């Protein structure tokens, strides 16, 4: 089996870490694997929202560390997908409440009971990031095809290597094929070349993503979501399967539309 403990990180905030984590965890659980997703973004709890589990939280990771309850009691069972569990972040504590050795101990106590353990890292490169990466067998770096995100992804990659982790794998998130075609946005190939990382997947910009998050329904459970399909493919690749990258094309961009655009139309 592939790597079991997977940390999802990015350096820059807002690039889709929690969304990707929640969706990959859901996709693997839906395939029958036993999965736990740990929200390591202490003080800024988010992963519960992606999974629609915010109303089911009683205990959180800091309660476990403080010995208030055993880890099994803090795990929130997903309401849709069998085999999926969430270990929520504390919302009222700060990042210093979880030390690297605390998270290592929690992961070790879960390791034998799960097929996959996802750790959703906080943004930034401080303590919280280091705590999230420390227990990981493998690291996934999420980058959007834009300047700041790519720069931060490179920084995080350097820090992972300094921590003795294997080279992170890359997910290019929110790629807009229309903008790529117009020459306004970097293509996934460019990002791969600039960062020099192995590409795990490309997730296209999907306007419907916000509504999936608003409903607390992971997009991977929808047959119609294009981002969901891309994320399901990534889950397959985590299982070691070779899945070709989606052919991402701008829609409805005929020559006539291009001429219209040149004349200022839309």
């Amino acid at each position: 089996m592939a790597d079991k403990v997977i940390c999802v990180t990015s350096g820059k905030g807002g690039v889709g870490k929690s969304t990707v984590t929640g969706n990959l965890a859901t996709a693997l659980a839906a395939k029958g694997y036993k999965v736990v997703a740990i929200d390591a973004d202490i003080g800024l709890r988010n992963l519960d929202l992606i999974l629609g589990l915010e109303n089911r939280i009683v205990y959180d990771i800091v309660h476990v560390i403080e010995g208030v309850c055993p880890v099994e009691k803090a795990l929130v069972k997903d309401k849709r997908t069998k085999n999926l569990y969430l270990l929520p972040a504390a919302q009222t504590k700060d990042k210093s409440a979880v030390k690297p050795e605390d998270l290592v101990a929690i992961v070790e106590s879960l390791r034998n009971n799960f097929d996959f353990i996802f750790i959703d890292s906080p943004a930034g490169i401080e303590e919280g990031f280091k705590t999230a990466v420390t227990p990981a067998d493998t690291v996934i770096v999420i980058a959007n095809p834009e300047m700041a995100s790519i720069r931060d992804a490179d920084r995080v990659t350097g820090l992972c290597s300094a921590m003795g982790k294997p080279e992170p794998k890359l997910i290019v998130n929110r790629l807009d094929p229309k903008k790529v075609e117009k020459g306004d946005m970097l293509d996934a190939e460019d990002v791969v070349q600039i960062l020099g990382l192995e590409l795990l997947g490309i997730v296209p910009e999907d306007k419907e993503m916000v509504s999936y998050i608003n409903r607390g329904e992971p997009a991977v459970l929808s047959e119609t979501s294009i981002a969901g399909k891309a994320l399901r493919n990534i889950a397959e690749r985590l299982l070691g399967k070779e899945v070709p990258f989606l052919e991402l094309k701008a829609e409805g961009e005929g020559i006539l539309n291009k001429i219209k655009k040149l004349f200022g139309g839309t």
Partner: protein
Amino acid sequence: MGFMDRLRDAFRKPPAKEVARQRLQLILKYDRAGLPPNAINAVKDAILNALKDFPFIDASGVTINISEGDTDREKIEIEVPVKNN
């Protein structure tokens, strides 16, 4: 933006993605080496200044680059050509 502006842009400006690619390649080079962005030019100026007293050196051909060293450290490579006689 009017038609003429669009047309002019289409001919004059390189695509934004190309600019981004070039900028990022340079930025990451410096970031990885832990150097401030203009460090190389400052080093180059200082070296050119020090070399100008030596007539056998071709100052116009001095090149300076950051490259990956053998260890995990980046290195700065300076090439100082001697003038042809």
